[in-house]
């Protein structure tokens, strides 16, 4: 998927950075805003942050690539996150991941060719009492199984 730099979003980001600059340690909050505004932090966006914060692009790139929440590639329209934390793992999360992989023909970390879905393994989201758990965007599905995963994806496709 090609990344397009939107002027309105650039203005939004610069406004956020101006706010964060007033306190010590502005880089991490600025990166969170960039990820939220653009959906990813490719080199073009890193350059903007570099200028605004007077930090080298190399430094910023090093920080972006360190943290798994920051991505340099755009994500799909819907993000499916399968929790592979311990409680979910021992209750069969791997099978749920596999059925989604088979349905959408993508591996964790990849986006489907039509740009509809990105599949991710997620870090534990703390709903271990309802293991195994997966999310589609912000909706959390607890006590999940392969059928629930299939149906959830079908519903998203219908909508």
């Amino acid at each position: 998927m090609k990344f397009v730099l939107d002027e309105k979003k650039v203005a939004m980001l610069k406004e956020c950075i101006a706010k964060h600059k007033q306190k010590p340690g502005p880089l991490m909050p600025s990166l969170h805003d960039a990820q939220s505004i653009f959906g990813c932090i490719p080199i073009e966006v890193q350059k903007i942050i570099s200028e605004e914060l007077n930090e080298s692009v190399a430094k910023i790139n090093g920080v972006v690539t360190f943290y798994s929440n920051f991505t340099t590639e755009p994500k799909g329209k819907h993000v499916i996150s399968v929790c592979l934390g311990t409680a979910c793992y021992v209750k069969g999360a791997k099978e749920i991941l596999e059925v989604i992989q088979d349905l959408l023909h993508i591996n964790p970390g990849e986006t489907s060719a039509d740009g509809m879905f990105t599949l991710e393994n997620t870090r534990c989201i703390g709903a271990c009492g309802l293991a195994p758990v997966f999310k589609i965007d912000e909706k959390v599905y607890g006590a999940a199984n392969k059928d629930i995963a299939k149906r959830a994806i079908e519903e998203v496709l219908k909508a």
Partner: protein
Amino acid sequence: MITLDYLNDAKAQTQAKIKLQNHKNGFRVVVGMATCGLTAGAKEIYDTLLHEITAKKLDNIDLTPVGCVGECALEPLVEVIDHNGQKTTYCKVTAEGAKKIVESHLCSGNPVGEMTIDNFKKTDGALQQVRIALRNCGVINPEDINEYICYDGYKALGKVLTEMTPDEVIHIVKESGLRGRGGGGFPTGLKWSLCAKNKGGQKYIICNADEGDPGAFMDRAVLEGDPHSVIEAMAIGGYAIGASQGYIYIRAEYPLAVERLNHAIAQAYKAGLLGKNIFGTEFCFDLELRLGAGAFVCGEETALIASIEGERGMPRNKPPFPADKGLWGKPSIINNVETYANIPAIIIKGEKWFASMGTQKSKGTKVFALGGKINNTGLLEVPMGTTLREVIYGVGGGISNGKKFKAVQTGGPSGGCLTEAHLDTPIDYDNLIALNSMMGSGGMIVMDEDNCMVDVAQFYLKFTVEESCGKCTPCREGTKKMLEILEKIISGNGTMEDITELEELALYIKDSALCALGQSAPNPVLSTLANFRDEYIAHVVDKKCPTKVCKALIKYFITDKCIGCGKCKRNCPAQAISGDIKKVHRIDSSRCTKCNLCKQSCPVDAIILA
């Protein structure tokens, strides 16, 4: 300006509302609306209750959203409390069930028997929880500061600022015996005193709310259900060590906790409980959130500091310790959420009260997150010294689906697996370390006879390899090599020499890695080797996985029960099955991908794992 009198007035007013003092035969109805509750559909239940109560014009009901009640697997949860304090807990409430509760219980005073907790929870009821860190979770509305005040919220801060010196505060925390609840177990009072020794200048107090251990959600419950307890404790700690600025470093994977904390901080500022001249004293304290970004290593205190500073989250050499040289080179205290949650209670009820609970060297209580193959998953808080058996079989209700207990993992990826032989161990910091595990943050994952312990070791190691920051060679290269050996064993290509190498490597890494992530990464491997060596040997010598989990070592086999219907053949995605109609079919193992579709589709259960 906030005063103690203001607190008392606010408390009295809210108490009247909560205890239904103005409503004859009234009820307080609370709905669990933390992450588990909301995931299970609690919002719809809350809305249904509100709709029914409004439609029936009931004016004697106080309907309130609350945080985590603790019974995560039984959500959505609704608790009805009458004016005598008698509580009825309803589980797995549906919209229809919510209507019944209003009709039968709220209108007519008759609880709906078939929906109460005794129908759902299998427990022998002997073990009583003692909720200190979780005292307000599931009890108060976390978005209403007045409900926090009602339960003595901010009373401790008022007492500390108007009646005590910083040294007196540190003394109380020391004498209480409180130890860090994040996993390290370092004495909290001692840590505070080491920081306070650095006189003058800027200092920082930080809350580690990164809670990265998979399977741990204790801190999430406190942050979502009782955020003010952390805010109050950090202000108290700031006063004690001389810090005017606090930061809560919270993982971005907890959006509800972030929202509730921000809301609570704004409320505290508005009420004058944060900011300038708190309680009319010279003490000023500012607090804000800083978000993590998906790096487990940032739960390590020096990596956390690096992250706030805007660096890659890589740990630093200690000494110097953060208490002397921390955030931006200034003396800093970092404590865990649960550690902080205990502080206001200790100030109000006293150090002797806290120290009267627990064991000789591990005082107070601990919150555990019980997960895995157990009947009652959820949170519990019990005194230190409670045994694993009491937790797993008492509160936990034993192993789910009638299976046999195999192991319990304590301490997350840094901990070890304990077996049946260890179940009567009293849980405390030192006992668990002696068993080659650790308390960790409190996550407890129960495993049963169907879990392969070699697979579990590989799972943990995959996690730590992925999360390794890469700075030091032992962790960066060593854990990767350990994982390669494990993968070799699981794929059926392992040798006895591999087991020896795995063990040696593990011990080297423990000794030489820079930070606790690397130093503890080998623990799951070492403890499974110690307690389940026979499984490793089966994988390596017999080329078998005793629990039939490791796919490379299992074979699908069609027995004589086969009726030749051909369903398996049609369903097989690898065309690995051959056979004629009405004749016993055969699987070609060299083509089989172990997808399990044949076994699932067989109408006569003729397919087994050999």
